[in-house]
């Protein structure tokens, strides 16, 4: 008697789990050890040597693992879209290879009134991408467009030093009083007080001049148009798929840019990037996995074709100075001494470098006499003893009696370094318990005063000046109930004073001395235990010339030229192959 076929539940959508054909499984398992011994293919040669002069023409093919969210310099910007914004929009100020501000669209500037007035004299005859000439009016209009209250600009308040900012940002004033057009090519910025950081702020992307089509109000639908070397044509950006920029023929630097076009493909993972790079479809690989980077660096044919980008990050363990046990400075010193930063580095040996103090590699001076944080196990135990919680490694007794909660999220190097931190701190009697949360939850917890005793701190320099590290991370003024980057809730009047003075100090040598003293305080009192800095590693084919490490850490392809061996190959690659 056949049973009634009742309605059976189909596969539960929550467990949308693919099945393994046993054959594919077996084949895969067999293939894996075979794949291990694959050697790297050789580089594709350049037609002429490195010393040859730059050649015009060709399309640079790039890829990245995610998508970009927008191309407006006045909108939210992250590492990925900044690389594109940097090509479309040029600014008044840029950096040289040593991270010093140099004029770009400005011909020169004058700093007057003890640092309260910055007068920029623009270059004449600069053509924007819509053909019109750049004038001081454009600079003022672009600045007001970016800082208007209806614009979703996350960096507007960086410019609150400009006279009239408060009224303008509140919507009470129609124009920004402190930006004054004083001639066809002369624009002045009047500041409330002397500001040594203003040039660095101008070098950021926020106030870069936009074409007249941008108007004076931010619109999501505006086609980006600026004065940079490459322009975006209508239809050039297929969201989530690809983006193509073409040469701006009227770019103010004669003969540049060398490339005809730059093309990005989005949502290409690291394995796909590697495969396409090896076959020549991709010219630079930037998102390689750690083992792949190791292989490229070890291969003598590829070694010289690798490039480390600038290190503009600060990573450390942030200890909440308002929560026990980290309200005790000796315990913080113990933590800073207990961490073996070399071990941290081994989790990603090709992209992490050890950091012992507050300034990232791009702006730090190597000074062996500087009292930086150091790994010293004996000293760590000594600090624990001074703190009143001595620990005996032989018996395992002592230390802080309760487990300490460490909040983190599941991306990047943190997960691995946190597990190493656990082991290092266990050796001095501090027991850490990891609490993995989602990224939005992490941000919320880290910035609430009583929520997270310890968490991974990280900062990426917004501009290349020590104030970009000290002011958000370690000053009292940065602490706010709505959120703060001072995740240690560190408050030291002496440090506040030093940093405020350095903000106004126009003499470079005096400034440097002030920041050095601030750095020494922060290393000693250890609101953060500094651990490492992160930098990208690029591999490029030999026919890609002119790729340098932009000091801001942005992936900068503005000076690149191509020199593929075999013109026919060039045409094929540009036209057909994907």
């Amino acid at each position, binding site marked *: 008697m056949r049973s009634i076929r*009742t309605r059976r*539940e189909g596969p539960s959508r929550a*467990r949308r789990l693919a099945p393994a054909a046993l054959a594919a499984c077996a084949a895969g398992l067999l293939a894996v050890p075979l794949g291990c011994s694959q050697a790297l293919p050789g580089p594709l040669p350049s037609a002429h040597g490195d010393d040859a002069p730059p050649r015009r023409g060709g399309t640079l093919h790039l890829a990245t693992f995610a998508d970009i969210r927008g191309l407006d310099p006045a909108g939210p910007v992250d590492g990925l879209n900044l690389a594109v914004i940097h090509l479309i929009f040029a600014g008044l100020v840029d950096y040289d290879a040593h991270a010093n501000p140099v004029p770009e669209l400005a011909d020169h500037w004058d700093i007057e009134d003890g640092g309260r007035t910055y007068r920029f004299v623009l270059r004449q005859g600069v053509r924007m991408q819509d053909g019109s000439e750049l004038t001081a009016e454009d600079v003022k209009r672009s600045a007001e467009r970016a800082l208007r209250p209806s614009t979703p600009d996350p960096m507007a308040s960086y410019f609150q030093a400009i006279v009239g900012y408060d009224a303008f940002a509140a919507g009470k004033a129609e124009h920004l009083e402190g930006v004054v057009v004083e001639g066809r090519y002369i624009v002045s910025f009047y500041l409330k007080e002397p500001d040594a950081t203003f040039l660095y702020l101008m070098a950021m992307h926020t106030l870069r001049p936009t074409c007249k089509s941008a108007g004076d109000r931010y619109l999501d639908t505006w086609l980006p148009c600026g004065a940079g070397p490459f322009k975006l044509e209508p239809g050039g950006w297929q969201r989530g798929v690809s983006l193509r920029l073409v040469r701006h023929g009227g770019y103010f630097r004669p003969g540049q840019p060398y490339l005809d076009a730059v093309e990005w493909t989005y949502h290409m993972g690291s394995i796909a990037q590697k495969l396409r790079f090896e076959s020549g479809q991709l010219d630079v690989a930037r998102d390689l996995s750690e083992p792949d980077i190791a292989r490229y660096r070890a291969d003598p044919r590829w070694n010289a074709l690798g490039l480390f980008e600038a290190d503009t990050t600060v990573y450390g363990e942030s200890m909440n100075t308002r929560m026990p046990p980290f309200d005790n400075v000796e315990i913080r010193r113990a933590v800073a001494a207990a961490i073996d930063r070399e*071990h941290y580095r*081994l989790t990603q040996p090709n992209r992490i470098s050890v950091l012992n103090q507050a300034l990232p590699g791009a702006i730090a001076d190597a000074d062996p006499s500087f009292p930086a944080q150091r790994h010293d196990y004996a000293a760590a135990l000594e600090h624990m003893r001074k703190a009143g919680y001595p620990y005996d490694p032989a018996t395992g007794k002592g230390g802080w009696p309760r487990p300490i909660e460490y909040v983190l999220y599941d991306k990047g190097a943190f997960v*691995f370094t946190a*597990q190493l931190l656990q082991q290092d701190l266990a050796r001095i009697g501090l027991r850490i318990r990891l609490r993995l949360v*989602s990224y939005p939850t992490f941000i919320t917890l880290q910035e609430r005063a009583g929520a997270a005793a310890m968490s991974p701190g990280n900062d990426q320099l917004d501009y290349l000046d020590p104030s970009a590290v000290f002011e958000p991370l370690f000053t009292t003024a940065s602490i706010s109930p709505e959120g703060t980057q001072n995740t240690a809730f560190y408050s030291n009047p002496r440090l506040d004073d030093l940093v405020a003075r350095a903000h106004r100090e126009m003499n470079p040598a005096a400034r440097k001395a002030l920041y050095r003293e601030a750095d020494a305080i922060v290393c000693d009192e250890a609101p953060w235990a500094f651990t490492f800095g992160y930098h990208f590693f690029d591999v490029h084919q030999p026919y890609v010339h002119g790729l340098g490490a932009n000091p801001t850490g942005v992936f900068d392809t503005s000076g690149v030229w191509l020199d593929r061996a075999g013109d026919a190959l060039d045409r094929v690659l540009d036209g057909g192959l994907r």
Partner: protein
Amino acid sequence: MADPRAVARFVKNRSAVAGAAIVAALLAFAVLGPLLAHHGPLESDFVHGVSPDGLPVGPSAEFPLGADRIFRDVFARLAFAGRLSLLIAVAATAIASAIGGTVGIVAGYYEGVRVRVPWPALVGAAGAVAAASLGHAGAGLLVLAVGAGASLARRMAGPHVDVDGLLMRLVDVLLAFPFLLLVMAIGAALERTTAVTIFVTLGVTGWPGIARVLRAKTLQVRAQEYVVASRALGQSALRVMVKHVLPNVAGPFVVTATVQVAQMIVADSILSYLGVGISPPTPTWGRMLFEGQDYYQAAPWLVLAPGVAILLAVWGFNMLGEGLRDAFDPHEA
């Protein structure tokens, strides 16, 4: 309970026995493995675990299954993870089966009938939902318990409700809800992700499937003569459900549960993959798979070890489940 004929059928079935053997072996590995390993599952060894080019070492005498990304012993971690993965899978299945079984049997039994639901139970349920959504799960449970208790104690008046319709609509809603969002919400509401929150999460998202299967089977059983007879004789619904329905749906129940255990193991790994799994450094097989995937070419053992463990566990539990079904109900081949 164990029908000797069923046991005999089970033993004769080669794949069922194989399944049982695999499951037993995995359990033994999980329990004994960490005791036999040279290293602890949470200790990094920077002396022996690092190869000359800075990568973790492969399988060797010191590290039978190689070292992981921060140079810990994969063998020890695999065995230790087995404990947690198996525990989560079994516990989650138990929760899902308990809830799903109850809901399925009740819905199937009362299908097509309007049931008088006593007011205290109704108020209790509504109050519990309201309290839970406001964040006071404990208070909610209390209200529910009071309501249920009061309605069981005395015969109370109440509205006539299409219980089956209601429960199945609830199942529909839960099945249509985005899994990831639900998991994140539960994780956020419970403050931290521990083993307990994981198997509660999986149990709570897994029960609708079981409920559907059991409801269908209950509909079948309900039509059988002996059930009809006992209802006609006036036996209470609860009695009929426990004495007659439950033993007869035991077959598909056990099978679904065993298969669910396998699915739960994978669900846990999916949770890790999506970033809402258990906190490190505690390993689960899914977490190990997730952590190792970047290195699958340079250090394939990082993916192979947990991958093979998961596949074996899944296979073993599935064969066991199929074997049990074939043993209990040979006609439903």
